[in-house]
C-alpha cells in the first residue's frame, strides 16, 4: 500500500498517519487498517512499508512511541501525536487540500488555453 513504487508521495503516507493519530494513540496494525478502510481499500498494497514511515516520523519528533496493552491484552507499541505532530498535521492537511483543490480545478476545467482555440 505504501511502497515507494506505488505512486504515493512519502508526504501522503505521513499525512494519513497524522490524521489517524489525531483520533488518539494507536498501534501500527490499527493505523494500517484504518487508513485502508478510510481510503476504501484503494491504498491496499504492502502494509510493511508503513513501519519505516512511522520510525522516520518518530525520529522527526512528530510522534512518540510507547509500549502498552492492546484491546485483546497483548503488548503493542502505541504511537501518539506530539505537539509538533499536531502542528504538522494542521499545516499539511490544509496544504494538501489546497493542492488537491487546485489540481482538481485544473483538470476539471472546460476553459481551453488560447493556443488550443
Amino acid at each position: 500500500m505504501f511502497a515507494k513504487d506505488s505512486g504515493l508521495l512519502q508526504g501522503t503516507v505521513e499525512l494519513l498517519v497524522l490524521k489517524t493519530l489525531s483520533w488518539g494513540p494507536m498501534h501500527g496494525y490499527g493505523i494500517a487498517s484504518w487508513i485502508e478502510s478510510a481510503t476504501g481499500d484503494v491504498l491496499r498494497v504492502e502494509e510493511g512499508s508503513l513501519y519505516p514511515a512511522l520510525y522516520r516520523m518518530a525520529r522527526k519528533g512528530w510522534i512518540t512511541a510507547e509500549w502498552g496493552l492492546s484491546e485483546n491484552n497483548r503488548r503493542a507499541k502505541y504511537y501518539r501525536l506530539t505537539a509538533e505532530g499536531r502542528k504538522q498535521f494542521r499545516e499539511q492537511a490544509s496544504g494538501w487540500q489546497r493542492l488537491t483543490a487546485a489540481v482538481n480545478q485544473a483538470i476539471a476545467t472546460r476553459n481551453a488555453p488560447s493556443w488550443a482555440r
Partner: protein
Amino acid sequence: MGEHRDRDYRVIPPKPRAEVDDELHFHLERRIQQNIANGMSPDEARRAAYERFGDVNDVRDECEQILVEERRAETRRNWFEDLSQDLRFAVRSAVRAPLFSLLAIATLALGVGANAAVFGVVKSVLLNPLPYPNAGRLIRIYTPFRNGNEPHGSLSAGTVSDVRERQHSFSSLGAFRGPRDVVYSGEVPQVLKATWAEPAFFRTLGVSLARGGGFRDEDGLHDTTTVVILSDGAWQRLFGGDPKVIGRVIRLNGLPRTVVGVLPRGFVAPEGAPDFYLPLGMPLFMHDPITVRGSHGFGFVGRLKPGVSQASAQHELATIGDQLERLYPKDNLGIGLAGVPLRDAMVGDTRTPLLILLASAALVLLIMCANLAGALLSRTISRRREFAVRVALGAGRSRLVRQLLTESVLLAVLGGVVGLVLAELGLGLLRGLALTALPSYANLSLDALAIAVMMLLSLIAGVAFGVGPALSVGRADPQQTLREQTRGTSESRRTRRARGVLVAGQIALCVSLLAAAGLLARSLWAMTTAPAGFTADGLLTFTVHLPSPRWTTEDQQSEFYDQFLAKLRALPGVTDAAVASALPMHVDNSNGLFIRTAPWAPNQPVPFILTNVVSEDYFHTLGVPLIEGRTFTTADRPTTGTVMVINKAMADRYWPNGGAVGAQVHIGPPNPTAPWITIVGIVGDVRNDPTSLRADPMMFLPTRQDMSGNQFIVRTARDPLAVAPAVHRLLKELDPTLPITDVATMTSVIGDRYAARRLPVVLMGGFGALALLLASVGVYAMFANMAASREHEFGVRAALGSTRANIAALVLRQGGFWMAIGLGVGAVGVIAAARSLRTQLFGVPEFDPLAIGASVLVLVLCAGVALLGPVRRASRVDPITVLR
C-alpha cells in the same frame, strides 16, 4: 521525546532489533487472526498476511537502522542536556556561596599562577632546546683546575691547537675569545661587545648567516684582515636593519672593518651577548713562546662526530689533558681537560636555584590542594541536607556525583584561567628581575605547553578534590542525614579529623617553605652585610675607554690619567679619585705567582692570584688600610724598579712567618728574563667573591708601571651621583671623543654582584608569603566551618553552664592540637629543606636558629590570628537562638 521524561529514572529500552521484531510480529499476528475471522484456513490466513505485508526482512532492517540512529542521537542529546543543566546549576550554586567560590578560585589561581610562572622560567632555561641545530651534540671544552678551584678554566692557544690535533671525537671544533669591550665610532662613540671567533666557530654551532658570506677560512690568519660580522641586535640597533649593510665599513677601536655578515635573529652566543664577531686565527697566538701556553682566555666548542658518545669524548679529553700536563708541566701542572654539554655550560649555576624554586612552587601547590580540599569538604558538609533531599526525591547518586564534579571542574577552570593571567604578570616581573641572573637564551614566556600543563594541573586538582566529597555524598544515607540535620548533631568525628589533618598538612608544608625562604634571606643578608673591607658609601664609579687615537702610547695614557685625576680631585664635593683596571669585588684577572726565594717544586701547581692594577690613590680613595710597608707613589715609574702591593690574606698564606715586604716575585706566564717585582706593602683584605666571607689573596700593581686601568673611582662628600654631570663635563673638555660608560654608585655596582643571589631569595620570599597567606586562609576557613557546624553543640554547652572562656578554650585547644602536629611534621620538612639548600647557603649555618625560629613564629602568629575569628564566633554562641 517526552517533555516530562525523568532522566534520573530512565528505563533501559530493549535492543532495537527486538523492539522492531516485537512490533512487526504483533502486526502479522493481528492480520492472521483477522483473516481467520474472515473465514480463511490458518495456513491460508498466514500466507495472505505475509503477502499483504511485503518483505518482512527489508522492513525490519530499515526500521532497525532508523531506530539505532535515533537512540544514538538521543544519548548525545541527553548528555549535552545534562551537562548544560549541571553547568547552570553549578553557576547558581557558586553564586549562592560567593565566599566559598572566591576562596576556591583565588586559591587555585595563586597556586596555579605561582607554578606556571616558575614552570615558565624552568622550561625556558632547562627544557627549551638551545638555538642550535642538533644542540645535544655540542660540547664546551674547559681546563678545570684539578684542585677544584676553577671548574670552567679557559684554554691557552697551545692547548687549543693540541686538542685539535690529538682528538678523534669531534667533527668540528671552534675557538673564541671574549666578549670584550670595543669602542664603536658611530655618531657618538659607543662601548659595545665583540667576540673574536674562528671561522670554524659558526660551522661548529651549525649557524648559517642571515646575510653575507661571513668569514673565509683564511680571514683569521692575517693581522691585516679587517672584517666583522654583526649580531642581529647590533644590525637592528646600529643600522636599522638596513639590508644593504654588507660591504659597509665601520670603525671599531679606531680601525676600519668591513661588514661581511649578519647573524640570524635568535642566535645566542655560548658566552655573553656580543654585538660584533671579529675573525680569530690561532696561528697568530702560537708565535710568542711565553703566552702560547701561559696565557689563557680561549673558549672552545666542539660538535661530536656521529656515533661518538659524550662519555667517550669526555674520556678522550681527560686523556689528552693528562698528556698535556706531562708534556708541559710548567704551564699545565694541576690543569686537566673536560667536556661539558653546551647546555650545562650555558645554564651554569642557575640549575640548582631553579630546581629549588620548582620544588617550592610544588609545595605551594600542595598547600593550595589542602586548602581546596578543605574548602570543598566544608562546602559539601554544609550541603549534605540539600543532597539528602535530592536523593530522597529520587535523584540518582551517579547524577549527584556528576553534578558535584561539574561544580569542581567549573571552579578549576576559572581558577586556572585567573592563575594563568597571574603567571603572565609574574613573568613580566621576573623578566625585569632575572635578566642578569639567567642565561641569555632564556626568553621567559608561557607557551602552549606550559599553558596546557597548568590547565591540566588545575583540572586535576579540581577533579581530585571534587571526587572525595562527591563520593562521600554518594555513600551517605539520606534518611539518617535528614534526621541528624533536623536534630542538629555535631559534625562527625571523621570529618573533624579530616579537617584537622588538612590544617596540620598545610602548617607542615608552610613552615618548611618559610624556613627555606628565611635561610636564603639570612644568607643573602650575611653576604651583603659582611664587611667588604672598604667604604662603599659615597663612591662614584665609571669607565673611560682608553686607549684612543689621541692617547695611544703609555706615556700619553699616563698623562691622561694625571690630568683627568687632578681635575676630578679639584671638583667641588670630590675628596679623592683613583683609577684601576677592575673595581673592588669585580677583579677577575688572575696571574701565576712565582716567589724568588721559594720556587715551586715540579709536582706543585702554580697558584693563580687575583691581580688588580691600581693608581697610587686607590687604597686611600676606597678606605683600605695600609698594614705594613707603603702603597704606590708617583715615584713608581716605568723606569724605576717594579713594585707590588699585596693584601693581608696573601701575606698570611705565602709568608706566614712574615717577611713579605721586600720579597721578590714573578707573575703571569713565567718569563725568566723579566725583572723581579718587589713587594713594598701589605694592605687590608677586600672581599672579591660575594658568596665567600673570606677574602682571597690579591696582588696590586701600579698603573704607572702597567698601563691598563680604565675604571675610575671618585670619593664624594655627599651624594655621589650629584657629581656625575660635572664628571661628564670635565671629560668632554679634556677629549670629547672619549666614551664614558657605566656611571654608577659603588653601592649599586656591588648590588649587581648579588643579583643572581637575590632572585631566588625574592622568589622564595614570595612563595613563603603566598604559602603563609594560603595556610592562614585555610586555617581560618576550616576552623570557622568547624565552629559553625558545632554551633548547636556549643549552644547546648552554654545552656548547661559552660562559660564563654570554656568554649573558646575548646576551639583553641583543637586548633592548637592540629597546629602542633603540623609543626611537628613540619620539622621533618624543615630538615629536608635546609639539607637541600646547603650548597646555596653562605655565612649562615644550615639550621640557622634565627631563620627557622622566625619562620615558626611568623606562622604561629598568622595561624593564631586566623583562629581568632572562629574562637570569637564559638564563644558568642547564644544558646537561646541556637536551641530554639
